[in-house]
């Protein structure tokens, strides 16, 4: 078997296993195992497994992930979201489609202490969806808005996919976070604009008149705990008091305290935080191990290397290469989860990107590409056929058909596309804060 055939076989086996509902992590693990054993034999393989779990799980750099996840679940269970949405409604309520915009604002604020898009979508949906229904918003717009708003959870730091990108490419996590802030805010504004246009162009999606809640001191307090936690965590990181991992621990502890003060964190919900953290972290670390085996098998075929050299030798325009990779991500994102996709492709694509000349320092190129990848990941969380966020929000709505939710996504996907192009052609938007903060 030639190396190319072997690589195709490994990849094909993974896809087949995925189609028959084998967990993606398992599909990568098994396909990688087959490829590894075929090339090197059984005993090198089991020796490789000896250290796999130790190296991946007991890893200081990666410990930032479960800590941010724990922080997010403390925030979810801690009753912060209700007051937050009230604040958002008081700020945005005056506009047409105001409650939908409030949901976006609430998602963005919640995203500032939560690094997962699904958790953000689910949390804000819990408080915002009933309100939007009560005010006469269509199921289409309500679920579309919340699914899209959820992606702000990863676009605005902290962000689990961004942490993973930083670790894979050996970039500074603090700098990556700084680079994501402005694009994250642009995403928020972009979604609000999308809503404003949508409710005017398509009639009957939002009520014509809404009762406006006044912005009182009490509703203003809704944002207070989040603002404090955000300033403590990111202020601490950028002032050099602690590393991002330590920042995650400090953030989790402060969110825990905020939830205690709110008085909504019971012993049962505290245990619930552990269960939820266990589920999301185990899932992520399982994907890490699966991708490790898969990547080890693929690397042995040398095909990824040759592919990279081939692309560089073709001498294409650098922006064209980036555009091609991002398009490929959109396609791949339709069948794979975003994390596995990053873990399998970044080791192949990143070296290509670093060999191209974008007129920036290598570090800035790496950071900017990471933000571009993050945008596409957000896109994949929404786009059919498998937009994870859409599933989650739609599942919570119960009475809205999935096709309606996918229709509701359209304005936000357009907004995503515009923003991605903007950042593709103007890297300065994301790099601007990196210069100032770090």
């Amino acid at each position: 078997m030639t190396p190319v055939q072997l690589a195709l076989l490994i990849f094909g086996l993974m896809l087949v296993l995925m189609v028959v509902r084998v967990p993606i992590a398992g599909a990568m693990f098994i396909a990688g195992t087959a490829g590894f054993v075929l090339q090197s034999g059984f005993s090198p393989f089991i020796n490789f497994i000896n250290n796999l779990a130790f190296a991946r799980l007991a890893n200081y750099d990666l410990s930032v992930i479960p800590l941010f996840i724990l922080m997010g679940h403390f925030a979810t269970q801690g009753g912060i979201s209700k007051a937050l949405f009230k604040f958002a409604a008081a700020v945005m309520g005056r506009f047409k489609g105001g409650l939908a915009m409030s949901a976006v604002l609430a998602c963005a604020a919640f995203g500032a202490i939560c690094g997962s898009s699904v958790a953000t979508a689910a949390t804000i949906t819990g408080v915002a969806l009933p309100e939007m229904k009560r005010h006469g918003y269509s199921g289409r717009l309500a679920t579309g808005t919340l699914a899209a708003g959820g992606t702000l959870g990863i676009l605005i730091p902290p962000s689990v996919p961004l942490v993973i990108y930083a670790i894979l490419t050996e970039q500074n996590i603090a700098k990556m976070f700084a680079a994501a802030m402005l694009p994250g805010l642009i995403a928020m504004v972009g979604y609000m604009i999308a809503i404003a246009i949508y409710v005017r162009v398509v009639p009957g999606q939002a009520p014509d008149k809404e009762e406006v809640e006044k912005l009182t001191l009490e509703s203003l307090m809704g944002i207070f705990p989040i603002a404090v936690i955000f300033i403590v965590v990111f202020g601490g990181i950028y002032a050099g008091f602690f590393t991002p991992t330590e920042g995650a621990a400090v953030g989790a502890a402060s969110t825990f305290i905020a939830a205690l003060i709110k008085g909504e964190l019971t012993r049962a919900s505290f245990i619930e935080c552990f269960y939820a953290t266990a589920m999301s972290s185990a899932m992520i670390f399982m994907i890490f191990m699966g991708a490790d085996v898969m990547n080890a098998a693929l690397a042995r075929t040398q095909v990824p290397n040759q592919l990279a050299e081939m692309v560089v030798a073709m001498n294409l325009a650098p922006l064209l290469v980036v555009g091609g990779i991002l398009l490929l991500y959109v396609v791949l994102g339709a069948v794979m989860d975003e994390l596995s996709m990053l873990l399998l492709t970044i080791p192949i694509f990143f070296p290509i990107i670093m060999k191209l000349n974008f007129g920036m320092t290598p570090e800035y190129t790496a950071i900017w590409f990471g933000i571009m990848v993050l945008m596409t990941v957000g896109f994949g969380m929404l786009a059919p056929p498998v937009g994870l966020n859409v599933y989650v929000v739609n599942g919570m709505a119960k009475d809205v058909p999935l096709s309606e939710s996918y229709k509701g996504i359209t304005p936000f996907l357009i907004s995503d596309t515009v923003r991605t192009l903007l950042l593709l052609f103007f890297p300065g938007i994301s790099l601007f804060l990196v210069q100032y903060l770090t």
Partner: protein
Amino acid sequence: MNPSSRLRWLARACSIIGGLILTALMLMTCYSVVGRNFFEKALIGDFELTGIACGIAMAFFMPLCQLERGNIIVDFFTAKRSARFNHGLDRFGDLLMAVIFILLSWRSGVAALSAKENMGASMLLGFPDWIVLAGMSIPFALAAVIAIAQTLARFDQSSQGVA
């Protein structure tokens, strides 16, 4: 038979242990950060402990994730098939997960034994590696048992909630 309530109890107990380890890690880090920045008292090797504790916690999280079938699957291609058909596929998936967890548990166990012989330990604190490896091997074994039980579980309308 479905994974018995005993396995569920064990998996939940494991994630609570993992969660407590993670919480302890969170508190230790806060202590370390405050000590270093305000009292000029650094906690030596705190990042080593972080890695170690995180590793054990993550392994303890695996059984619950397997029990609840929390690993992401692609159900787009099989969404229109009957529940019975998909249950059959899921049992195949569970079988593969069982193989993976057996492999992980076995090899981490072997690595633990050899680390004990070679006195492998962390750089600064000298924390023995074998404890970490054994601390991973055990929950992996539980995850394997759960996956085997799921593989053997017959189709049962009432078990749909677990999918």
